[in-house]
């Protein structure tokens, strides 16, 4: 029996604040089965646990800190201009705390 269930997929979707149709749920389940099959191949690679995970393209990448110089920040009007609901200098949202 599959370890992936419709309920599990819906739970993951809810955590992401995404609603799924029945058809979309089924598509996720099918894809999970496929990925899990492939991941089993990865897990069968000998000594895989000894390999250091690669998190970045460039192994020689050196992180450099910028000089601590103040720069101009985003203008309030610019920050607000793509929001669907604003008031004065603020973005309006539904009430969060009752």
């Amino acid at each position, binding site marked *: 029996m599959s370890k992936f269930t419709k309920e599990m997929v819906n739970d993951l979707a809810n955590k992401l604040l995404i609603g799924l149709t029945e*058809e979309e749920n089924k598509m996720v389940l099918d894809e999970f089965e496929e990925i899990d099959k492939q991941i089993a191949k990865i897990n069968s690679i000998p000594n895989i646990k000894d390999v*250091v995970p690669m998190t970045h*393209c*460039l192994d020689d990448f050196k992180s*450099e800190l910028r000089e601590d110089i103040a720069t101009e920040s985003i203008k309030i009007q610019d920050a607000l201009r793509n929001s669907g609901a604003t008031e004065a200098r603020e973005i309006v949202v539904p009430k969060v705390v009752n």
Partner: protein
Amino acid sequence: MNYLNKSITELHNLLINKEVTSEELIKEALTKSHEVNAKYNAFVTILDNAKPTEITDDLLSGIPFGIKDNYSTKDILSTGSSNTLNNYVPFFDATAVANLKKHNAVPVNKTAMDEFGLGGTGTTAHTGIIKNPWDPTRMCAGSSAGSACAVASGVYPYALGSDTGDSIRKPAAYCGIVGYKPTYGMISRYGLFPFASSLDHCGVLTRNVTDAAIVVDEMKSKDDKDMTSWDSSNINLYKNLTKDIKNKKVCYIKEICDINNYPNANQELKKHLDNFYQTLEKLKEIGVEVKEESVDKTLLNALASVYVVISCAEATSNLSNLTGIVFGPRKDSTNIFETMKKHRTEGFSPLIKRRFIIGSYVLQSENQERYFRNAQRVRRLLVDEWLKLFTKYDAIILPVSTGPAKKLDQNETIKNEENTILEEHLQIGNFGGFPSITIPNGFINNLPVGINITGNRYNDQTVLNIAYALEQQMNYQNQIAREINN
């Protein structure tokens, strides 16, 4: 007069000699943009008010170009081809765009793409399916589908793309043009909508290698706003372009190129691989040593899953700011979580939803080790294989995909598993941040096919020089799509 099927240097000379004006080129590009959009659905926005610029010694001055819609463009709609950003107008330019504008380049449209770059077919843009200009019943591949379609249609000599798996290089092959992604970080990603930050590259689609060198020279810079960008000011790709590549060494990989790997190969695949080997002969004719190498197939078999796991995980994190609150169309509700849920449920395509759920699953603490960390481990093993080859060779040369562009009505679920490595191997270029270019190398059933050249990090010049020299041995540079009749 049709000017925009010409190369950048040809257009520059015409502009300098006042045989054409920037205004005339823009007018032609806009007329073609509307025609191409009506036929192939290549654009999100056409900038009908684009203004001419001063013609200077800069090769790009006064010449129109296109921008993929996941690049932020100041005061211009930038949607990433998603309904969740269908009204988003940035207040700044991506650094790559700003760099081109400094050289008086003229943007004339924003090109459609797979939603946020997460697809490889050109079929998930919120504006509809992007069709291949050689055959509108076929796909362009993706995600830089609109850019590839426009360049192949002769709208302008170049368009910007982005490449997280093969999103520049596969559409280039399917549309018979050149697609180049330089070494990771050579071009700043500031202002590019992030998909998977450890894999995302900026790049360009053109109709010849010289134009790719010219454009990337002007796009690239070390940028304080992208800590992963690096100083490439000592690299001048165009100036150092040469077809003298005698004594260079390249290899191809048996497990990808040998027809015996594909017991169920169709005629297209057989012809594609035959054509690949014929192209290798052309390299040998100009003094390049070409050898076959072998790579552990267990690793190659894992590459597609490695890509899905890593890219979905990073995408889930990167795109979590799509709430519809700060930007994007607001969905009214009495509850903030319902507001966000409505925004995402109604805005995302089914593909994006699947990708996010997979990304979320592999990042759950109980799953991280089995999925995400192990995918990162295999990423390293695959990159190490490529790095080992680069100690012996200047580049790896491989066929792109399994043949020409696929039919749009071809059911994705009947993908042939034995072809997966051939379809997906370009992703290794993203795993390692390697410079990688696709150029056209022939036709199968009157449709273009491509070949890819990938080199070691920072060795972009060698990669471009091999591509440039090989391009001269063939007759496919500067080609414009000729719609075929089925």
